[in-house]
C-alpha cells in the first residue's frame, strides 16, 4: 500500500516536471537555443501566484492564469529585447546571455522578495483525498492533473492548429517559412511566450505544495534539462513521458534505497540512456 502511495506521489510530481520542461523543449526544438533562465521562469511563476493570493485573494485558477499571462509577456519581452539579438552572435554568446538573464532574474527576486522562504497560505487549496487508502493531497492532485492536461494542450496546439504548423515550419526551415508568408520573428516570440508561460503556470501549481525562495530556480532548471534530454529535444510528448518517468524514479529510489540515492539513480539511468539512445526517448535521430 505504501509503495502505491509512493508511486502516486512520484507521478504527480513528475507531471509538473513535464509541464515546465515542455517549455524548455519547445525553445530547444524550435531554435536550437538553450535557455538557462528556464528555472527562473518557474520561480517567477511561484512569486506571481503569491502576489495574486495576497493582493487579490484568488484561487488556483486565478493565480495559475495570472502566472501564465505574466510569464507569457515576460517571455516575449525577453525574446524581443535579448534573444533576437544574440541569436545572430556566436553559440557562446547565446549560452552566456541566458545564463546572465538567469542571474539577473534570481538576484532581482532576492532584492524584491528577500531571501526568506515563503509559501502560499494554507487556505489557497488544502485537504487530502483518500482513495482506497491512497492519500492524495488536493493541491498536488490538482497540480498534477492540470499539468498533464496543459502539457497535452500544448502538444495539440503545436500539432493540430495553424499557429502550431507555422511554429513548426519556422523550426524546420526558416527561409522556406518566410517564403510562405510566415514571419519567423513573430513565431519565435510566440514560442518564447508559450515556453515561459508553461514554466510560470507550473511554478504557480507547485507553489501550492512547496515552500520556495529566489534560489529555487536552480533545482528546477537542472531537472528540466534532464527531462528534456531524456524525452528528446523538441518533443513535447517526450517531455511528458520523461517527466513522469523521472518523478517516478526519484520517488521509488528515495523510498526503496534512501533519499540520498535518488539523484544518483536518476543521473545513472540518464547517462546510460544517453549512451544507448542519445536522441532521447522521442527525439529524432
Amino acid at each position, binding site marked *: 500500500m505504501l509503495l502505491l502511495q509512493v508511486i502516486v506521489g512520484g507521478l504527480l510530481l513528475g507531471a509538473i516536471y513535464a509541464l515546465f520542461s515542455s517549455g524548455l523543449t519547445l525553445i530547444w526544438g524550435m531554435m536550437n537555443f538553450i535557455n538557462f533562465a528556464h528555472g527562473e521562469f518557474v520561480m517567477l511563476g511561484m512569486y506571481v501566484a503569491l502576489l495574486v493570493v495576497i493582493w487579490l485573494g484568488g484561487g488556483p485558477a486565478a493565480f495559475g492564469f495570472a502566472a501564465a499571462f505574466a510569464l507569457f509577456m515576460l517571455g516575449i519581452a525577453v525574446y524581443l529585447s535579448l534573444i533576437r539579438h544574440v541569436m545572430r552572435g556566436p553559440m557562446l554568446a547565446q549560452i552566456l546571455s541566458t545564463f546572465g538573464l538567469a542571474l539577473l532574474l534570481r538576484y532581482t527576486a*532576492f532584492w524584491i522578495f528577500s531571501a*526568506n522562504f515563503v509559501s502560499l497560505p494554507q487556505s489557497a487549496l488544502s485537504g487530502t483525498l483518500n482513495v482506497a487508502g491512497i*492519500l492524495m493531497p488536493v493541491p498536488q492532485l490538482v497540480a498534477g492533473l492540470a499539468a498533464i492536461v496543459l502539457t497535452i494542450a500544448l502538444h495539440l496546439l503545436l500539432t493540430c492548429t495553424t499557429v502550431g504548423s507555422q511554429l513548426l515550419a519556422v523550426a524546420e526551415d526558416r527561409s522556406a517559412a518566410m517564403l510562405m508568408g510566415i514571419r519567423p520573428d513573430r513565431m519565435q516570440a510566440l514560442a518564447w511566450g508559450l515556453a515561459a508561460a508553461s514554466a510560470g503556470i507550473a511554478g504557480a501549481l507547485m507553489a501550492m505544495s512547496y515552500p520556495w525562495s529566489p534560489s529555487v530556480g536552480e533545482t528546477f532548471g537542472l531537472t528540466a534539462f534532464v527531462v528534456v534530454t531524456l524525452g528528446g529535444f523538441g518533443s513535447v510528448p517526450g517531455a511528458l513521458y520523461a517527466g513522469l518517468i523521472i518523478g517516478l524514479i526519484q520517488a521509488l529510489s528515495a523510498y526503496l534505497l534512501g533519499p540520498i540515492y535518488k539523484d544518483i539513480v536518476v543521473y545513472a539511468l540518464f547517462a546510460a540512456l544517453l549512451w544507448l539512445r542519445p536522441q532521447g526517448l522521442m527525439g529524432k535521430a
Partner: protein
Amino acid sequence: MSKVSASGLFTISVVAALLGALPAPAAEPVKIGILLPLTGNAAAAGQASKAAEEIGAEIVNGKHPELANLPLAASEGLPGLGGAKLDLVFVDHQGNPSLAQQLATRLITQDKVHALLGAYQSSCSFTATAVAERYGIPFLVGDSAALNITGRGFKWVFRSTPIASDYAATYMRFFDDMKKQGRRIAAIAVVNENTDYGTSVADSIEAEAKRSNVAVAIRIPYSASSTDVSAQVLQLKEKQPDVVIFISYTSDSILYMKSMKNLDYLPPMVIGDDTGFSDPSFIPAVSDIAQGAMNRSAWDIGKPGSTTYKINEMYKAKTGRDLDDTSGRNMQGFLALAEAINRAGSTDPEKIRLALSKTDLKPEQLMMGYNGLKFDDTGQNILASTYLIQLKDKQYQPVWPANAAAAKLDWPMAGWKH
C-alpha cells in the same frame, strides 16, 4: 574681492570647526571578518545572524549602561585598546565550503582582519577555520555544531556554541525524564540533511541513543535541496517511531511538516534540531500544522526589563522580528570575541589567542542560556548548554529542563489537530 575673502573665511571657519570637533587621535578600529551565507539556500538565516552581529557591534561600540551585566556594554568601544571601535567586514560564502575557504584567505591577506567569526554551515566553518589556523589568526565559531570543527589540534579556533554531542546528550536526558514521567519512548527516528552539520549531529544522537538504550528505528539522511520528501515521510509512517528528530535546514523542514500533514502522519513528538526550525520563515509557514513541535534553543527573550528582553527589542527595531537562537548564538560568539580582544589590550593575533584561551565568563555575563563560557584545550566551550522549547501558537516557549521552563510541555504534539 569681498566675495573671495568671504569664501576664504568660510573655508577657514569650516576647517577650524572640523579640527575643533576632532577628538584626540582615535584608536585604530579593530577589524573583524565575518563569514556568513548571505545569499543561497540559507540566506535568511545568514541575514538574520548578520543583523544580530551588527547589534552586537552597536552594544560594544556605543554606550549601553542599561545592559551593564554584559561586558563592554556600558563603556564606549574597547577600553583596553583606548576606546577602539569594532569594524565588521561581512563576506558571503553562499553556503559553499570552497568559497568560504577563499573568502577567509581574502579577509586575512587583503582586508587584514584581526579576528574571524562565522560561518553558519558546519561545512563552511570547517574549511574557513583551517585557513585561519594556517595564517595564525583567531577564529571564533559562533553557531556551527559539527564535532570535527574543533578537535583537529588547532590552536587558533575557538567555539562558543554547544556542539553535536552536547545536543545529543541533552535529548537523551530529556527522553530519560519523559520515561520517568511515564511516557513511552521505545524507538526514535533520526532524519538528517547529509552535509557535515546533519551527519555529525545524527551520528552523535545515534551513539548517545545506543548508550542510553533507546532504539533508533530508522535513520534517514537526505539532501536539504530536495523538492519532495513524501517518500521519507512514508518511510517514517511505516516505522511508527515515538519521536522523530529532524536535523534540517529551512525549506526542507517546512516541506517535512507540510508533507506529514498531507500524508496524515503525526508522530507523538517531533523534535527539530534548531536551524530550519528556528529560521524566521518556519513559524509563518507551518505554525498552524506543527503545533507542539519541539526545538532546542539557548535563547530566551525573558521578562520585560531583562537584558535579553532589551536586546530583543533592539533586534526587533532593526529587523521587525524576534531574535532567534541561531542568530543569538552568533551574537554571543561575537560578544565573547570582543571581550577577549579587549582583555588582550592589543590587536596582536597571539595576544588575542591567549586572551581567548583564558576566557571565563559567568552565566550572568552572557545573553544566551549557557552555564558560562570557558574554552578547553581544543577550543570548545565546556560550559555550553541548551534548553528545549515547544511551539505554542506562534511562538516557541522554554519547556525543559524544569528550572528554565516558562510553559507546560504538551505531549503528544497536536500538529494540525487542534
